[in-house]
């Protein structure tokens, strides 16, 4: 899933400071799963904004909505009724959401309430980690099923570098050396010979480096 985390309240208050009529818009997709932007988080953020406004002596005018998803034009339609009298939308979807809203409503200010951090998963309750960098040409089977592009600090395809120590990465003792994990796994699979072959330069055209990407599924088009 796309993992995101909420921006600090202070930053959000500064963003929306000039606007009175605000809509807090959540999303029932990935950000609900990672507890950053679902219905519950919309309620919490809206309450925080109301309290802050009251403290400033203002009558708060904060509305709430949580869309099925914010990354699909038909679900953006759900905003129609509620957005009309709003000056600003504070979206707590991943950064795709506010861009959809900004693209649809040319007269509304749109603000991102979250920092979209990575494509990943949860390791345990409340701990999320990055697993994929969306290079567009998955080859993790060459690395014991683990991705060195996303999980090695230097994205080495021929690791581990000289900074791997006791299973940890040179940048921090809190970061696993994915190359140690790859080594352990390939050793267990009896496939260490995979690590003796030099992996040549990668073609990054399928990655962001090839420009903004678009996927067309002819079989799904109407």
């Amino acid at each position, binding site marked *: 899933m796309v993992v995101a985390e909420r921006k600090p309240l202070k930053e959000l208050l500064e963003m929306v400071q000039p606007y009175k009529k605000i809509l807090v818009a959540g999303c029932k997709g990935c950000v609900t799963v990672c507890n950053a932007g679902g219905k519950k988080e919309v309620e919490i953020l809206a309450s925080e904004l109301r309290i802050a406004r009251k403290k400033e002596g203002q009558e708060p005018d904060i509305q709430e909505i949580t869309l099925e998803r914010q990354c699909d034009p038909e679900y953006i339609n759900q905003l129609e009724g509620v957005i009309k009298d709003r000056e600003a939308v504070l979206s707590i979807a991943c950064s795709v959401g506010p861009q959809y809203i900004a693209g649809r409503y040319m007269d509304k200010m749109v603000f991102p309430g979250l920092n979209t951090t990575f494509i990943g998963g949860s390791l345990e309750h409340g701990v999320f980690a990055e697993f994929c960098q969306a290079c567009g040409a998955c080859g993790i089977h060459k690395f014991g099923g683990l991705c060195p592009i996303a999980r090695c*600090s230097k*994205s080495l395809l021929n690791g581990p*570098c000289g900074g791997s*120590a006791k299973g940890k990465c040179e940048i921090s003792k809190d970061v696993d050396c994915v190359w140690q994990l790859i080594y*352990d796994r390939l050793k267990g699979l009896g496939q260490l010979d995979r690590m003796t072959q030099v*992996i040549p330069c990668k073609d*990054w055209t399928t990655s962001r480096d090839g420009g903004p990407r678009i996927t067309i599924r002819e079989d799904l088009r109407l």
Partner: protein
Amino acid sequence: MKSGSRLEKVLTSGQFAVTGECGPPRGADAEEVRKKAGHLKGVVDSVNVTDNQTAVVRMSSTAGCLILLQEGLEPNLQMVVRDRNRIAIQSDILGAYALGIRNMLCLSGDHQRFGDHPSAKNVFDLDSMQLIQTVKKMRDEGKFINDQEIHHPPKMFIGAAVNPFADPADFRAIRMGKKIAAGVDFVQTQCIYNLDRFEKFMQQARDLGLTEKVYILGGVTPMKSVGMANYMKNLVPGMDVPAEVINRLKGVAKKDQASEGIKIAIETIQRLKEMKGIAGVHVMAIEWEERVPEIVEMAGLLPRPQV
């Protein structure tokens, strides 16, 4: 001859090589490079010029190399893949060769998180292994990565770094073999303080037949103080500083720690000279170039051969 560099001539003629290192200044004063060069002239066969080491901005490696050339020293251009993509890398290799640089050390580079610009974006288009392949392809096939022909190919003597003390320990010699397969001519190792562990690495390298295929230069860095030894032990990733080294430095008066460090370095070189499969030493006296002449002399490695 692949490149015709002095380092290549020394190594291929079977003589024990000595390389040094020069970290360019954090400023634009060429005089600082010349001063360091003065200490190393006639003492080492080739001088590595570091490429923004520890991800701290310094004068460019290529510029440092050119100043060394002007001073009559042979440079070894260190290049990291952290800061440049394949377009810049190949362009810089062409430029380096045009300036008279004939040795290159291919590195991945310290992560910028350690450096003075942790907010930088890194590149890592290639890794160090692929950089080796690139320099070799440019030299031997006369082609760029994209297979297009180079009109006047750069002929570099290709080096890489090897850290026998990083993990997984069993993979370290194998990974050196991978660098050889990628096209490396010589390697320089991480600073050696744990000679027993290094000997095990060399045994594995010999068993794999690697010492016949590459020139291995053992890395030696003299300790200036107990403080430096503790820093290296605890804060430099992939460094193995055994307690006995620290205890030896602790065992002498503070004012004598530097000379004790030099003594340890000389003893290390002497052991490396006896080790089968070692083709030379790489003396990295960090901001201490003025002590290199006595280290090399005391180790019995002067005068340097004329090739």
